[in-house]
């Protein structure tokens, strides 16, 4: 067994274990920390796949940004020590059943399918290539999605601010449906 | 500009005009003027039509214009008229103008009321001039949908219930109808070639009999729902009872005629073989409904219910006559549509006016009104006499034409059905006289009625217009009957290919 395989298995194990912890832990803060581990390991996988830039982005944005955001909101909405109530048994059994069936379905499909290995030479991926491709409007250019994403981000920012703003007229308007 | 398209355009322009107005008074005036112009255009159309025919133009349809609308499905905006549609258009324009004057006193949301009313009438006009099934269906929906608003907003009593019932039942009908129309469309070129929505083109080919067997009942029942075909008539009593005056007038007077007109122009004309095969079912249903509606009307207590059941009876006669599939009976059917349209509109107008004064529609609460409101009373009696088929008024002409046409069949089935239908004239007399006797004659039951005012000028215009039309047809039916009968020939010839009895 080669080194990279061992590393992969390690990462995979971390991802699987902490994923499960993320969704099952009854302490929400622990779940968030588990998520952090998952995200970091994912970044490791990206490195293994030779996507160094993306791995960096993953670490910075996900692990650094989103998880922090999540932890903040956890702190805003619950006590650190708060233990969540246990999951409804029926619900968890049905969900687990569906999920396991889905997993079996997906994995068997993956295993049955023979992916054709490619002989094409791997493209050079460095910051220059990525930056140019992102701003290129030629074939293989990504300026359109890039611009869309930027607009989306802007909109999301504005939306987040407006929604979260305290005492906004929308949220405080009396609700006629409620008795 | 084609004169036919003008008939659709004028109502739309009137609506546009109303949109810019704020003043109630001006809204009424603009509506009346717009629909007055419409009446004039309709009169001009009648005149043009007759002179064209006199000049020897023997085309099936006159003033045909066709504009491409949706190429890939061969949908065209195709308009054209024959004597039947001309007659129906004339009827509609008369009823609409009477309806406008009858709703002179609508106070609540006047602008919106008139807009809906005129939109409805625009749909009706469009329906009568269309030669393209799709366009026809479109206008049909345009005519039906404002009804919901008109009843739901300006109605009385359980108006939401009635409006919902009416709309749902009619929509159910249109669903069947849409299937039927699409069925016709996809069978319009059995030998290959371009599919078509055009009635005239489809009438030249023969739709495969298997397809006809399936789509004829759908189409016929689809239109039949609007034409109050038993047992799909129950929207009518509730709907009429809740609807405001002008809406009842337009609905019973004109909209229900779309059903009859469509049933024969689309269902019978395009699918004669299936019509011939299945006629017996519908003949039974309609002859039942003729008598049944009349019996139902006898014991009703509410004026509008009486009239609604009476409409079931009279409209049943229309469909009955259409199914007889010969020239005389079908001419009678059209005459009956016109006659019923006029007199029922008159009835509803009067009921609205009486209700506006007495604030009740229950006949046993009223009595002796002839003394206090003689004008309305006399007109009511005239309408009643027209309805029970008094010679000299339109109902007689129509009914007799139907009976004689139906009697042309020599087999016992048709003759017995005819006799059943004929017997309705007695039952009609019973309920009409019962209403007239209770409502107008006898001593005045309520002191409060002593101070009622007789008709105002706009009510007079509304009712006199209708009375004149009813009497004119009744006294001199020859030209109208001939105009309709001549236009009936191509249709009858097509039917004869199916039924060379």
């Amino acid at each position, binding site marked *: 067994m080669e080194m990279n395989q061992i590393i992969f298995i390690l990462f995979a194990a971390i991802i699987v274990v902490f994923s499960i912890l993320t969704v099952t832990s009854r302490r929400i803060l622990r779940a968030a920390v588990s998520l952090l581990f998952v995200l970091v390991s994912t970044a490791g996988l990206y490195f293994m796949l030779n996507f160094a830039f993306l791995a960096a982005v993953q670490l910075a944005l996900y692990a650094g940004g989103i998880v922090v955001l999540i932890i903040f909101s956890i702190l805003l909405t619950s006590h650190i020590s708060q233990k969540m109530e246990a999951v409804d048994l029926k*619900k968890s059994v*049905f969900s687990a059943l*569906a999920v396991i*069936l*889905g997993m079996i*379905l997906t994995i068997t499909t993956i295993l049955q399918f023979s992916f054709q290995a490619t002989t094409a030479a791997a493209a050079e991926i460095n910051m220059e290539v990525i930056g140019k491709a992102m701003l290129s409007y030629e074939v293989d250019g990504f300026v359109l999605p890039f611009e869309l994403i930027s607009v989306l981000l802007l909109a999301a920012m504005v939306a987040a601010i407006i929604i979260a703003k305290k005492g906004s007229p929308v949220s405080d308007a009396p609700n006629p449906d409620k008795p | 500009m084609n004169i036919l398209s003008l008939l659709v355009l004028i109502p739309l322009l009137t609506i546009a005009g109303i949109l810019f107005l704020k003043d109630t008074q001006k809204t009424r005036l603009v509506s009346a003027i717009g629909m007055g112009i419409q009446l004039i255009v309709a009169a001009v159309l009648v005149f043009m039509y007759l002179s064209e025919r006199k000049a020897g133009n023997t085309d099936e349809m006159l003033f045909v214009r066709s504009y491409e609308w949706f190429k890939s499905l061969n949908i065209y905006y195709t308009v054209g008229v024959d004597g039947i549609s001309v007659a129906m258009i004339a009827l509609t324009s008369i009823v609409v103008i009477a309806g406008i004057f009858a709703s002179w006193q609508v106070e609540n949301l006047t602008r919106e009321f008139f807009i809906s009313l005129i939109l409805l009438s625009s749909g009706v006009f469009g329906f009568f001039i269309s030669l393209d099934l799709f366009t026809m269906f479109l206008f049909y929906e345009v005519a039906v949908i404002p009804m919901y608003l008109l009843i739901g907003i300006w109605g009385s009593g359980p108006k939401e219930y009635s409006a919902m*019932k009416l709309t*749902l*039942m009619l929509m159910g009908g249109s669903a069947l109808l849409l299937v039927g129309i699409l069925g016709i469309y996809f069978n319009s070129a059995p030998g290959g070639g371009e599919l078509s929505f055009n009635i005239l083109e489809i009438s030249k080919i023969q739709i495969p009999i298997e397809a006809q067997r399936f789509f004829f009942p759908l189409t016929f029942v689809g239109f039949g729902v609007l034409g109050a075909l*038993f*047992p*799909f*008539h*129950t*929207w009518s*009593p509730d709907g009429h009872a809740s609807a405001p005056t002008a809406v009842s007038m337009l609905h019973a007077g004109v909209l229900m005629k779309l059903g009859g007109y469509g049933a024969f122009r689309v269902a019978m004309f395009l699918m004669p073989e299936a019509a011939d095969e299945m006629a017996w079912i519908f003949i039974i249903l309609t002859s039942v409904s003729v008598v*049944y509606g009349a*019996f*139902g009307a*006898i*014991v*009703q207590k509410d004026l509008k219910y009486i009239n609604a*059941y009476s409409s079931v009876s009279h409209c049943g006669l229309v469909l009955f006559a259409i199914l007889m599939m010969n020239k*005389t009976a079908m001419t009678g059917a059209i005459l009956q549509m016109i006659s019923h349209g006029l007199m029922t509109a008159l009835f509803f107008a009067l009921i609205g006016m009486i209700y506006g004064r007495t604030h009740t529609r229950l006949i046993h609460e009223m009595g*002796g009104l*002839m*003394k206090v409101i003689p004008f309305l009373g006399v007109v009511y009696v005239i309408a009643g*006499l027209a309805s*029970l*088929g008094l*010679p*000299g008024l339109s109902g*007689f002409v129509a009914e*007799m*034409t139907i*009976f*004689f*046409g139906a*009697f*042309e069949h020599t087999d016992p089935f048709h003759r017995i059905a*005819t*006799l059943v239908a*004929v*017997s309705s*004239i*007695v039952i009609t*007399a*019973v309920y009409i*006289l019962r209403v007239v*006797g209770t409502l*107008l004659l*006898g*001593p*005045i039951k309520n002191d409060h009625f002593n101070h009622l005012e007789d008709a105002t000028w706009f009510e007079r215009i509304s009712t006199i217009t209708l009375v004149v039309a009813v009497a004119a047809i009744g006294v*001199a*039916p*020859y030209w109208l*009957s*001939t105009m309709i*009968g001549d236009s009936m020939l191509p249709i009858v010839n097509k039917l004869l290919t199916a039924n060379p009895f």
Partner: protein
Amino acid sequence: MTTDFGYALLIPLIPLLMFLLLGLAGNQLKARLSGLLGTIGLGVVFVLSYYTAYKYFFATEKIAGAFSKITAFDMVWLRFSDSLHINMGILLDPISVMMLVVISTVSFMVHIYSLGYMKGEVGFERFYAFLSLFSFSMLGLVLANNIFQMYIFWELVGVSSFLLIGFYYQRPTAVLASKKAFIVTRFADLGFLIGILLLSFNTGTFDFSILCDPQGAAIATGSGAAFLGLSVMTWSLIFVFMGGAGKSAMFPLHIWLPDAMEGPTPVSALIHAATMVVAGVYLVARLFPVYIISAPDALVVVAYIGAFSSIFAAVIACTQTDIKRVLAYSTMSQIGLMMVGLGVSGYGGHEGLGYMASMFHLFTHAMFKALLFLGAGAIIHAVHSNHMTEMGGLRKYLPITHITFLIACLTIAGIPPFSAFFSKDEILVAAWHHDKLIFAVEYIVAGLTAFYMFRLYFNIFWGKETHYHHTPHEAPAVMTIPLIFLAFLSVFSGFIPFSKLVTTDGIPFEGHIDWSLALPSVFIGLVGIIIAMVMYKKETSLPDKVAATFKHGYKWAFNKFYMDEVYMFVTKKIIFAYISTPVAWFDRHIVDGSMNGISRLTNAFSFRIREFQSGQLQKYGFVFISGVLLLTFLMVYLWN
């Protein structure tokens, strides 16, 4: 020829114009003026009708010895199919000209009379408008040149009768009576219409001149397939007769006639005595060639219904106390007699004696019955009551009315030389030769008629002295002049040589009085009068004793043999309670219920499936995921 009588169009048109004028502008005119206008209009018609009669009978050449049928006017009114079309036309032949005279005379007299009788009534101009409408319709009816035109005017006559009976529309009994009259005759008209449908499709024409031509094709082709043992032609003619029976108040469709007396008395005189009620007789007479040639069975029906009605009505008339009702039943009885005349007639020459006699009786009856009604009107006008129990000894107060009434009573009793003696006698002769049973019935009826008429006469003008609130006074001249004129006609119209004018085939024949039958009939008439005189001239207890003797019979007759109750049962119980109410219920609950049921079903279904819309995000998610998985499974493993 036709142009000669072109003016005849004016005869129905003038009353129509008067109707429109008075109907539309009547309330703007002064009541008096509108009455006068109507009367003048009718006066013109009166003159024109007499002129026409003169011209037709005496100044127009006969063709082959027969009076010709003249179509003075004809236009297509409505076209059904290529062969069938309704025309509006004017046909002049002996019976229509005779009817013109009858109608215009009586109508004119009634118009004049009403000027006095209806004076000061509310709706005076309306009354005249309706009278004009009636005159128009009735004239149109008799002048009709085809059966459908006749039907049209038949209906119009019915409606004018309805309007006039209900003239006092605030009186509930009048409203009920008018309704009853209209609906009963409407029901009869249904038969008429079915008869027309059958007849016209068998013969292919509406036109009288083709239909009634004895040698014509219509009659020959008509007698076709049989149904229930009778030919279609017979059925159709029986149905047509049903219409006639309704208008002419033959049993069992007579119930409207007594109630129709709720109308103003001049109306009863005009419509329910002299003109409209004989329309049925006229109808049968008009179609007489068809009846006699293609459906003699139908004529038997006519004869027996006529005979039964006449005796039935005569019995009831003996017990009634309302003078107008007595007259009404008398009318019914006399019309039955006319029907008998037609029913027992043959065709051509002296064979057609019954037909001629029937028409003759129609003529004389119109005069004396109108006179009786107008006289009754004058009496009611004077004492303000309809009941003979509240009258008595009026001969001193109302001398002219008394004399004219007496003349009329003598006429109807068949005492020579008054007119009805001649006409009634001829009918009896015809019946004698045709059917002895019918003759016997009519012979009894003759006696009964004399009895009840004189019972009426003695009760009113003799009998006990009654105390009146105000002293009765003789009617004004506008009312007495028509009485005198009609009395004059009643006396002398018997001398008109009817057999030279009105015959089945238009060829005159010599009529003579068969004294061997006439004398017995005069005798029984006299017997009736004498019995009435004994019983009612002085106030005695005799009538009560007689009534007590025939207690049950009297009670039945007094209650009109409970015919009204039977009808009420049929209408109220059967039609209202057992047909209409269930139909209405069925419609509301079953038909509409199933429609509402569909909507309720949809609603219930929606309520069930709305549980899916729980607002629980995770449930949605679960369903969504399961669905996606299922679809994936299907797509990957099954559809490939």
